[in-house]
C-alpha cells in the first residue's frame, strides 16, 4: 500500500493503477501469508488430513484379490475429492472472511480507502490473494490425488473436471466470504457467518436437493443411495442443484463404469432456458462464475457506498 502512494509521476500512477492489485496488494498479501508459520501449518494439516484419508482408504482396500482396480481408482478419486470439498467449505471462508473486516479491526481500512485504489481494485486484489492461497491447497494435493492413476478407472479428464468444480467452488465461497467481510466489522463475526453460509451452500443445499428429488420420486429417503443408478425418465434434479457444489462434484466424478456418479441426473436439459444440454457440473461452473462476478460487483458497490451500519459513529 505504501509503495503505491510513494510512486511518483502520472505515468507511474497510471501503470500502478493497472498493476496495482496484482503487483502490490496481492504481493503484500502473499508475502505476509507465506512468511507466517500459519500457512505452513495450514498446508501441512490440509495435506495431512487428505493423506490420512488416502492411507485409510488404501488399507481398507488392500485386498489385491478383489480385482476391481479401476473401481477402486474411481472410489479413491471420489473419496479424496469429496473430502477436499468438505475441507474447502471450512478453509476458504476462514481464509477470506477477514480480508476487509480484518483491515477494519486493525484500523488500516481507512488508510486503504484513501489511496487511489478504486473499491473494485481493493475487492479484486483481496479476492485474488485469498484465492491464490486456497488454490495452493488444491494444487498441493495433486501428488496425493495422482495415486488414482496407478489404479486405473480414472483419466486425466476426470481429474480436470473435478478440479474445475473445486476451483469454482473456492471462487464462489471466496466471494461470498468477501461480501460478508465487507458487511461486517469484526473478523470473528465474518468468519462465523461465512462458514455458516458455506455450510448452508454445501450441505444444506444438497439436503434440499435430495429432499426435493425424493419428494418427486415418491420413494422417500432411499433415493439418497441410488442417485447414480436411476432409470431413464427419472425427473431431473431441482434447478437449485446447479448451484450446489456437492451435487456438481458428484456429477463430475467418474463411477468406474464409464459414467458419472449422478448418471443421467448429471445432465441439465434446456440449461438457462436455452435449447442446450450441458453437464450439471458445467452449469455449476458457469453459474458460479456469474454469481461470483455479481458478488464482486456488489462488494465493490458496498465498499463505495459503505454499509450504513458500519458508518455509524461509535457511541
Amino acid at each position, binding site marked *: 500500500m505504501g509503495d503505491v502512494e510513494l510512486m511518483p509521476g502520472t505515468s507511474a500512477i497510471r501503470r500502478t493503477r493497472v498493476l496495482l492489485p496484482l503487483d502490490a496488494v496481492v504481493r503484500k498479501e502473499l508475502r505476509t501469508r507465506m512468511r507466517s508459520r500459519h500457512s*505452513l501449518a495450514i498446508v501441512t494439516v490440509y*495435506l495431512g488430513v487428505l*493423506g490420512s484419508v*488416502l*492411507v485409510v482408504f*488404501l*488399507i481398507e482396500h488392500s*485386498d*489385491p*484379490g*478383489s*480385482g*476391481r*482396480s*479401476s473401481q477402486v481408482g*474411481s472410489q479413491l478419486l471420489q473419496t479424496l475429492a469429496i473430502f477436499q470439498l468438505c475441507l474447502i467449505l471450512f478453509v476458504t471462508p476462514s481464509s477470506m472472511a477477514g480480508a476487509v473486516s480484518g483491515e477494519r479491526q486493525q484500523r488500516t481500512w481507512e488508510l486503504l480507502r484513501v489511496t487511489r485504489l478504486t473499491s473494485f481494485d481493493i475487492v479484486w486484489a483481496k479476492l485474488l490473494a485469498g484465492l491464490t492461497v486456497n488454490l*495452493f491447497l488444491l*494444487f*498441493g494435493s*495433486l*501428488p496425493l490425488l*495422482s*495415486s488414482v*492413476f*496407478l489404479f*486405473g*478407472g480414472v*483419466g*486425466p479428464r476426470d481429474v480436470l473436471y473435478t478440479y474445475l468444480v473445486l476451483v469454482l467452488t473456492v471462487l464462489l465461497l471466496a466471494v461470498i466470504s468477501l461480501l460478508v467481510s465487507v458487511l461486517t466489522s469484526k473478523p470473528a463475526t465474518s468468519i462465523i457467518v461465512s462458514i455458516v453460509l458455506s455450510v448452508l451452500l454445501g450441505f444444506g443445499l444438497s439436503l434440499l436437493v435430495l429432499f426435493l428429488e425424493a419428494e418427486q*420420486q415418491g420413494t422417500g429417503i*432411499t*433415493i439418497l443411495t*441410488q442417485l447414480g*443408478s*436411476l*432409470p*431413464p*425418465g*427419472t*425427473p*431431473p434434479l431441482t*434447478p*437449485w442443484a*446447479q*448451484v450446489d457444489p456437492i451435487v456438481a462434484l458428484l456429477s463430475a466424478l467418474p463411477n468406474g*463404469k*464409464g*459414467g458419472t456418479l449422478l448418471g*443421467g441426473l448429471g445432465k441439465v*436439459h*434446456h*440449461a*438457462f432456458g436455452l435449447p442446450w444440454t450441458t453437464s450439471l457440473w458445467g452449469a455449476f461452473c458457469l*453459474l458460479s462464475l*456469474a454469481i461470483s*462476478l*455479481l458478488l464482486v*460487483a456488489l462488494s465493490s*458497490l458496498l465498499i*463505495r457506498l459503505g454499509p450504513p451500519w458500519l458508518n455509524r459513529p461509535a457511541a
Partner: protein
Amino acid sequence: MRSVVGATLLALALALSAPRVPGVAAHDVSSTRAKQNQPKSPVSLTVATGYGGHYRASAWVPIRVTLRNQSSAALSGSVTVPDQGSKTQFAAQDSFSIYQMPVALPAEATKQVTIYLQGRDLGDVVRVQFAVAGKTVAAASDSPTSFDAQTISLGALATAPELVSWLRRTKIQNTSLSTTLLSPDSLDPVAEALANFDAILLTNFDTSRLDREQITALERYVRAGGSLILVGGPDWQETLRPLPSSLVPGNLRGSQGLGALSGLQSLAGTRPPPQTTIVSVLDHPRGFVAASQGGLPLVVRQRLGQGRIMYLAFDPAVDAFPRWGGTVTLLSDLIMQAAPQVVGRVTSSGQGGFYTNRFGPSTMRPVVANVPASATWPSLFLLIALAVLSILIVGPVNFLLLRRLHKQELAWVAIPALGLLCLTASVATASHLKGNMVLLNTVGMVELDGSSAIRPATLYVGMLAPMRGDYRAVWDGPALPQSLPQYIADVGSAPSTSSLALRFREGSQTTLDFPSMNMWSTRTAALRTSVTIPGTVRSKLHLASDGSIVGTVHNGTSLMLARPIVMAGRAIVRLSDMPPKSTRRVRIRPHASLPGQVQPALWDQIYGATSPDPGFGSWDGDPWEEPPLGTEASLSDRLRNAAERLPEARDIASRGEILFLGWSQSPLGTFTVDDAAPQRRDLNLIVSPLSVRFPRGPFRLLPGTIGANVVDARPRQPQSSCCFDSVTPPAVAVGPGGSATFQFDLPEAHRIHFRELALSAGGSSGSVTAVGQAYDWRAGRWVVIDLQAGNALLPRPDRFISAAGALQVRLRSTTELGDLVIADPHQDLQLSGWATSS
C-alpha cells in the same frame, strides 16, 4: 455498476427459473415432431417372440424379425433389440445390452432374421428397431409372456395339429399343458432355444425335412437336460428312421399289429380295448423298458446326458386310444415320466429361498473381473510411502527450503509446480506400465459327453481395457452372448438404467462391442457356445469286493488337466496333474451324506475352506449381502472361487454319477480384440462322467455308488413352504396325497444277484417322512417298505430289480406324515448291500 448488478441478477433469476424439462420427455417431444415430419417408412417390420408368444425364462428365446423393403432401392442396416435387464424384486441391472444383426434388404424383398436373447433379459416388452445409417426407419414391439412353473411346455413336430390332439386328454394335477406345433421352419437349430420346451414330441412327421443343424440341436437339447418323446406306430419309418442312432433307444426294424395293448395295463391301471394296433418294433432296447408285450417294448426310457428320450411303440392318436378309459392316466403318466425336470419344478414351485436362483450367471462377474493383482494393483507400501513423501515435500520441506533461501513468496509457484510435476509423473508411469495390455480373463465349463469333438461350453469373459475407449472382441464361432450385469437397488418400475454396457452381434462369428470403457476397467459377458476338444477322458473302473471303485483314468484330450479329482457321491479322490495322454490309478471309497450330518460345501471340501467366512456357499442370494470374492493366494483359491460361482457347476454334486473333474488353463477357441490377439488368462472346468462296471464274484455296494433320479410324481400342493434361507429349491416337495417315484439304474443287472439290499432315505436333510414303496417286478405291484428309521432292508431284493436294472421307489405323502421334501435325490436316497456278479 448498479446496472451491471441488475442485469446479472436478472440473468441469474432467469437461469434458475428455467423450465424443468426431463431429458426423456424432451427426447420424446422431438421424436414426436420428427415422426410428424417423416415420410412413410420404406420398411415394414414385424416381430414375433418365443413360441406362440410364450417362452421359458431360463431358456434362450428366439426373436423373429420379418423385414419387408417396400421401396425400390436396396437398403443395408441393422436390426437392434435391447435387453431389458433381469429386473427382479428389489433389484435391477445397472446397465443394458443391445443385440444387433446386420441386414441387407434388396429392393422389394422380405427377409427374416432371428436374434436370441436370454429369457430373463426380455422384460415385459421386446422393442425391435431397424436402422439404416444410424437412423431408425422401422420399429415394432412384442409383449411375450413366460411360462409359469406349473405349465408343462411341449413342442410338437407333427404334420397336422389333429395328430397331437391326444395331448389335450392328459390331466396332471396342479399343472397345465401348453403345446406348440413346430415345423422345420420354426424349429430353431439352437439347443438353448429348444430348452423353452420341457419336452419335444416327434409324431407322424417327416424328420428328413430337418437339416443337420436342427438334428444336432435336438441331440444337444437332450444332452443338456431336455426330453424327447418319439412316437412310433404305423408311421414310424417317416418319423424315426432319419434320426441318428444316438437319439433312438434301440434298433428299429419294422412294425407289427398287436391285438390289444395289454402291456400298457401296468401303466394305465385298466385293460386296453381288444383292438388291433400297429406298433413299431424296437430291438435291443437301450435304457429302461417301462412297458412291453410279448417281448416287444412298448414304452422305453433312455437317459442321454442330462436328459432323456422316451420311445412309444404306439401312436396315441390312433383309434383305439380315444375310446379307452385308461388313456388319461396312461398319457398323463407318460408325459410326467418323459420330462422328469418338470417334476421338480412343478412340485417345488414356491419352495426354496427368498432369493432362489435370482442372479444366475451374474455371480460370475467378480470371478472374470478379477485379474491378477500384479496386472493392476499398485504396491500398497509404495503408495503410502509416496503419499507421506509428497506431503513432506509440498509442505514442510518446501517451506523450510524457501525460508532458508528467503524466498517464501515463491511458494505460490513452487507448490503448484510440485503438484503438477507429481501428477504428470504418475500419469506417465501408469501409462508406461500398463498402457498396452488388453487382458481377456475367461472362466468356463466344458462337459466331455458324447463322441463328438465339438463340445457345448459356457464361457464367462472379462475384458480389462488398458486405455479409455471402445473395444471390439470377436469370438471365432457362433455363440449366444449375454452380459453379466451388476445388480442395484430397484427404485421403481423402470426396467433398466441408461448405461449401455455391451453390443452383441450373433452369427457365424460373435462380436462383443464394449463401448466407453474406462482405463483399466473390466467389463464382463457370458457366451453359450461350443469348443473343439478332440479326445475325451476315458476310464476303466470297476467295483472292488469291498465296494471301492478302482481302476484307471486316462486323459485322452490334448489338454493339461490340473488338480483332477474323481467324485463318487460325497467321496472325492485327488489325482496328480494329468498331462495329455497320461493315465492315473484311482481308488475311491464312495460314501453319501449321513442323515442329519452337516456337509461342508462341495468346493470347500475339495479345495479347502473358503475365505472370507461366511463364504459364497452359505450365501442366500441377497444381492446386498453377496460375499466378496475370496482372496486368491493360491491356485486352489482361484479354482474354488471359480467353481463355487459357476452356475453350470452348481448341481454337479447332484448328478448321481461318478464324475471326473479337472481344470485346463489352455485357451479354448479364438478371441481377437480389435483385430489383435489379446493376452489371455483361461480357466476351464472339464467335466466327464465315468462309467463303473460290477466285478465278477461277490462285492459290496456302498452308498454313493448309484444315485436315484425322479421319474414320476403326483404333484400336490405342499402344506408349508420351506427353506427360506436356501438358494436351491428342493428337487421334490409334495403335499399330502401326492407322491414321487425315484429310480436307481443298476448296470449289468442281468448278471447280478443281490443277497442283501438296503434303501436309506434322509441324507443330509434328515429323515424323510413318507410312506415308502418299492416296485416288485415279478408280482407287478408296489410293496410297502418301512422307512421310519430312515432305512429299510428290502426282503428278497432281486424281485425289485427289473431285467433292465431298474429299481423303483415311490414315496407317498400323507396327512399324518406331512409334506414329502427331497432336497437332492442323489444324496437323500441311497442303495447299499451285498451282491454277487456272475
